[in-house]
């Protein structure tokens, strides 16, 4: 379970997250929608401690992410994240990209790490691209590799940060399909996205972010289908 309690986060004088509280249960898929600069990506970075917070608490399975004594490297093993700019490691092959963390972070033997990597890569449809360098892949393939790389750590949670925003329109589908598959397998996911139709389809709940706060949260049929807040309705009108 991920518990976010009254989290505030500023970059210098600019406060981007202004008191967010929400809980994500095991097995749940929560989509976060909202305009650019509404603080949704920043919140995601705070959940696995890539960004520090100014106040509040974020608990992952009861462990305070930002507490002094927390072993953040250990905690991150169970929180996978996929970025907008997929961030493939260019000097490693697709297989090596996915094997690296299981070997060096989890200390698995080479054969085992390789087996895991092959399994995850096949799962996202890249079983034929093991020996290829990322520069030879399309954006959609690199993004799927990034998903496999996160999955290879067997995380309990997956965070997706606008993973289709930097892709050509014809490549969006293959990445969304991969995420659909994960959600059907019961993965707990927080998905920051601009793909409203996708959010509606896969989410258990949708959170609408506005000016650093959760303006509305609930089942997709409510938040997207029948928004209660005028800001949500205005936002949806602008993107649909």
């Amino acid at each position, binding site marked *: 379970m991920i518990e976010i309690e009254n989290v505030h986060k500023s970059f210098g004088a600019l406060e981007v997250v202004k008191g967010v509280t929400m809980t994500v249960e095991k097995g749940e898929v929560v989509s976060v929608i909202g305009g650019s600069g509404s603080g949704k990506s920043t919140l995601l970075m705070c959940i696995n401690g*890539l960004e520090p917070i100014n106040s509040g608490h974020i608990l992952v399975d009861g462990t305070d992410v930002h507490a002094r004594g927390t072993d953040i490297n250990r905690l991150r093993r169970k929180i996978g994240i996929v*970025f907008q700019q997929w*961030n493939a*490691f260019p*000097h490693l092959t697709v297989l090596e990209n996915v094997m690296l963390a299981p070997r*060096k972070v989890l200390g698995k033997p080479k054969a085992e790490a390789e087996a895991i990597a092959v399994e995850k890569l096949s799962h996202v449809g890249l079983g034929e691209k093991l020996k290829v360098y990322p520069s030879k892949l399309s954006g959609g393939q690199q993004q799927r590799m*990034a998903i496999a*790389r996160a999955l290879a*750590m067997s995380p309990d949670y997956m965070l997706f940060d606008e993973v289709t925003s930097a892709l050509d329109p014809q490549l969006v589908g293959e990445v969304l399909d991969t995420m659909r598959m994960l959600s059907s397998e019961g993965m707990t996911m927080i998905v920051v996205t601009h793909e409203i139709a996708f959010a509606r389809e896969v989410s258990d709940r949708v959170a609408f972010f506005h000016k650093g706060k959760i303006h509305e949260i609930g089942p997709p049929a409510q938040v997207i289908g029948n928004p209660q807040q005028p800001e949500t309705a205005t936002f949806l009108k602008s993107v649909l």
Partner: protein
Amino acid sequence: MNYTFHWRPAFRALPDMLWGALVTLEVAVLSMVLGVFFAVLLALASGSRFRALRAFATSWVELARNTPALFQIYMAYFGLGSLGIYLDSFPALLAGITFNNAGYLAETFRGGLRAVPPTQVRAARSLGMGPVQAFRLIVLPQMFRVVFHPLTNQMVWAILMTSLGVVVGLNNDLTGVTQDLNVKSFRSFEFFAIAAVIYYLIAKFVTGSARLMAWRLFRY
């Protein structure tokens, strides 16, 4: 032109010259190893929070890059000598070239470090790697590719700079040996021509093997 070429005595001296070339390589390799070491420290110092460290690094880099290498070697030998610190020819030459290498390479490393986007570190950390692990496994290999060719160039430059050792009395490197042979026999053209060919071959060997290494290492 009434100079008659006598190549035979020059070729007879070839083994001596090749031994000299070995000393040349020794100075060059040592100066590169030490140069890389100091360059890393300088690159880190130039990004430091402490002004004194930054100033020190900047001065080193500025002096190394904007004064003649010959003066840098003179300084290590005669300059320090007049301050009461006496270095032999070999360490003085080594110090001078190391100073020069470190200055140039510090800038190279600084650029190389900047060429690796910070998002790479972020991705590595998100997978549970610690900061040192992320640097070693993700940043360093990518940086190495960026600095590889400048590093090769500096190595060639270091080899050629060792010939300046003769001005601080080094007599067992390739130039030193050649100079001695020249003084003894006055077959100046022959000896210097052969020495030049040896320098050329060493330099070509270095760039050639570097190219081969780059081809093996950087498949991406």
